[in-house]
């Protein structure tokens, strides 16, 4: 098992954002996490990356307990996140953004990885000298994914990749995610757009009130009456 989360809880002051999350991800899976606004999805992502303090339960990655490990070490261990709202370094060039994505990697591999990124996202090559803040939303999303790939992660966390994108760009982004999954990358995807996320996922979880309440294959969840009612609007 690549990622294992047991009874994880986390609070913002007195408010419990995570309340006993149970979740497993096997190597090579594309796991989707769906749920309403405020269910704790982003908090869970932040906790996995180590930028959100937890106060109960634990996180195991690649067999090791990483509950107390710092955010920067988790990147070195192989966890990369594409954060909600993309969070590119807007005042820096596209190429510098990619370079910083490889902050934890040995110098020698960086040029090669940047070239790989340009093959995957040709538009980033065209805009390599441009400031990241001048890119369109879709291009920034590609850059954020590219930057996360630069760390050569074993597990990629994607937080709301469709947020703020036009339907066409949402399709494109999900095609990219699918391509990454097919190339063997383990992906954990958080989405409000439950239908799209569950359609490409091998497995999925539904989150409510800070805990995972349902688990199944993507198809099972799509067919589930409760999921249909609550998240798919049918």
């Amino acid at each position, binding site marked *: 098992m690549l990622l294992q989360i047991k009874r994880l809880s986390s609070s913002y002051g007195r408010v419990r954002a995570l309340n006993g999350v149970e979740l497993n991800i096997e190597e090579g899976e594309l796991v989707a996490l769906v749920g309403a606004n405020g269910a704790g999805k982003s908090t869970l992502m932040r906790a996995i990356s180590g930028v959100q303090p937890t106060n109960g339960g634990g996180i195991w990655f690649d067999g090791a307990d990483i509950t107390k490990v710092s955010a920067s070490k988790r990147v070195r261990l192989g966890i990369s996140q594409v954060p909600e709202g993309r969070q590119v370094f*807007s*005042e820096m060039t596209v190429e510098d953004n990619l370079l*910083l994505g490889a902050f934890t990697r040995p110098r020698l591999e960086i040029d090669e990885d940047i070239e790989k990124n340009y093959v995957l996202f040709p538009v980033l090559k065209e805009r390599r000298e441009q400031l990241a803040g001048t890119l369109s939303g879709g291009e920034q999303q590609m850059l954020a994914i590219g930057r996360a790939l630069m760390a050569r992660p074993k597990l990629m966390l994607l937080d709301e990749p469709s947020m703020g994108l036009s339907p066409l760009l949402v399709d494109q982004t999900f095609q990219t995610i699918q391509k990454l999954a097919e190339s063997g990358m383990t992906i954990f995807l958080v989405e409000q757009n439950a239908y799209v996320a569950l359609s490409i996922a091998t497995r999925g979880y539904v989150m409510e009130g800070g805990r995972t309440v349902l688990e199944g294959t993507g198809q099972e969840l799509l067919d589930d009456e409760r999921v249909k009612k609550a998240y798919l609007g049918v």
Partner: protein
Amino acid sequence: MFADFLQFLISGITVGAIYGLVGLGFSVIYNASNVINFAQGEFVMIGGMASVSFLSMGIPMPLAIVLAVVVTTFVGFALEIFAIEPARHNSVVSLIIITIGASIFLRGLAQIIWDRNYHNLPAFSGDDPIKLWGAALQPQSLWVMGGAGIIVLLLWLFFNHSILGKAILATSFNPLAAELVGIDTRRILQISFALSAALGAIAGILVAPIALTYTNVGVMLGLKGFCAAIVGGLGNPMGAIAGGLAVGIAEAFTAGYISSAYKDAVAFVIIILVLLFLPSGLFGRKEIDKV
């Protein structure tokens, strides 16, 4: 007439370059943490005092200078670890107050280790002035200007062409994203304090042969450097140098043409004017609060 003008300009550029270097120190830490480090002036003092001290132990000048910079860098590093780090989760204002406390502590410590007397560091290459159209240029002024120029160039290379420099910038632009790409933002803050201490020490050492050094020298130099950083736009390294030159030149002309009694007031009048009319400084980024 022209000789006077030139003389004032030369001394203005010389002190301006020093203010600029001190201002750079403010900018480096501000960028990494939004904290204004009021102990910056103490780095200037420690640099000057430590070189005098090492020199009096019989250590040759170049080595004494290097040692003084190293010692000050270490003080900056220690300041971050022992004073800032434990309070990291407090508000920026609390951190700023901590730096004020730290500056008083460092000054007191310096008075115990050294004394309250004025000390003179010999000029790096003699005291024979160079005649220039009737004005006298001290060789040490050339060291100050050249030194400041080289530091600016090195800093520019560091921030634009090294991965560590870019990581410091990235941390200042977006700390969360920096953490998510694996940058240890605590380490970045330590490096910024060390770097900024080294900058202060260099300024203190360059100016010591011109202005004497003593344990309270950092108070005024620190404030003037702060002025330079504000005038140039806090957080903008090149702005700090430009701001330093502006403050230094204005000061020298006021002292020369009006009265040296008003010299120290100039910097603060400039600060007030800048804050009233150009709140983000001459070259500052426009502040946009993210909600």
